[in-house]
């Protein structure tokens, strides 16, 4: 696999010098992370625009375009979104485990 040589995240040509607008290429990811990340980035009020694309279906890359208001850094917005997405995952996992532990659901037996 080329994953040892290809960096996970790259900034693509054409980004502004202060990174207030940049496109990030994320290697070995798909709509799974692309759409979730796009949503979390759009939850940031400093983000002017965010969109992602899968440039080619047989290449395992996504590109995330981020444009910021007031010369904020898109890289910092990306890191914040990743952190928030992680918090979200923890919250969903905790709630699910609570419900599973409480055991207040219907149980039934399914035959193979």
């Amino acid at each position, binding site marked *: 696999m080329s994953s040892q040589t290809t960096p996970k*995240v790259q900034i693509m040509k054409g980004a502004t010098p202060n990174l207030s607008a940049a496109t990030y290429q994320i290697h070995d990811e798909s709509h799974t992370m692309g759409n979730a990340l796009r*949503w979390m980035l759009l939850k940031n009020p400093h983000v002017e625009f965010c969109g992602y694309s899968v440039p080619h279906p047989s290449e395992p890359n996504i590109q995330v375009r981020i444009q910021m208001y007031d010369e904020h850094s898109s890289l910092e917005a990306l890191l914040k979104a990743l952190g928030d*997405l992680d918090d979200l995952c923890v919250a969903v996992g905790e709630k699910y485990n609570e419900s599973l532990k409480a055991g207040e659901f219907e149980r039934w037996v399914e035959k193979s």
Partner: protein
Amino acid sequence: MDVNPRRLVGVTAERATHVSSTDFPGHYPNEDHSWNLSQFRQNLKAEVQRLSNRSIEFDIVGVDASIANAFRRIMIAEVPTVAAERVYIFNNTSVVQDEVLSHRIGLVPLNVDPRNLDMKADVEDPGTDRDTIIFRAHILCERNPKAPKGSEDPKELYKNHEFLSSHLVWQPAGEQASLMMKDIGPLNLNIVLAKLRPGQEIEMELHAVKGVGKDHAKFSPVATASYRLHPNIVITKPIPMHRAEEFKNCFAPGVVVVDRVKKVVKIDPKGMRNDTVTREVLRDPEFSDMVQLSRIRDFFIFNVESESAYAPEELLPEAINIMRGKIADIRRSAESLLSTGGDNGGDVPMADP
């Protein structure tokens, strides 16, 4: 159930309305929709509804479709399982060709907990007891000398006339027998892999490895992993009693309750979740403006069937862990960009964006 109209996706006779979510900063003037963890936790619900030995139904309420979809996609394509990857055929005189038989064997779900195995670093690596499970199969079909006369049943005429998944026998390698592994074999022992006739023989060795569904569907731990949005049905004008039965039959069983004593037709809030929102009711000219159909945009009813060594209730936590792993990978790499000051000169192998 009174639902905030902003959460509803309208279902009309010809189209769906208000499909996109609007909970973004800047969408509504003077409202703050930026990410807020404590508020998210308050609105979030994740409840198991039904659980069997093979499948689970649970609700996740208060998340965006992109998040629910990420969990669904990870359960299908990125939660690892163990499946036969290499088949070494010493003898196969059955009518099923080697490559077809190998493919069928690859698809057999195996009862091997993937958490006990390592992922092979490279498919070409020779394999160790930490990353490979070996099975053997040897079966020879013979005539049954005691078959009743005139019988045409292959079960009576022949011995071993079917090559079944139960004929795959685990060969513990290295430390495997002493480790936590037990009951290793196919999950279903009655899968017919090939049919045999007297004199036909199959002898083979299988090497099963850990893999993910995006590489090959045989590694997918689920038979189905899907979600649907919770239906929301509101009766806006009283339904005439003489047509109550007709109205009831426009919906799935248990959705509509007809109270003959009080002479009212109501929607059962618990039964509502089972409706399929067929819009049959909108075809009736009288009913069509007495009811409003919709779905709740952030109310996901998941249905997951495990077809692997995972118990069905373990699949979502596994998916969440994998998602967190992916986030950590991206974050590590993005943080290293931070230290280089986002220097993007010379490090871009791609063409113009």
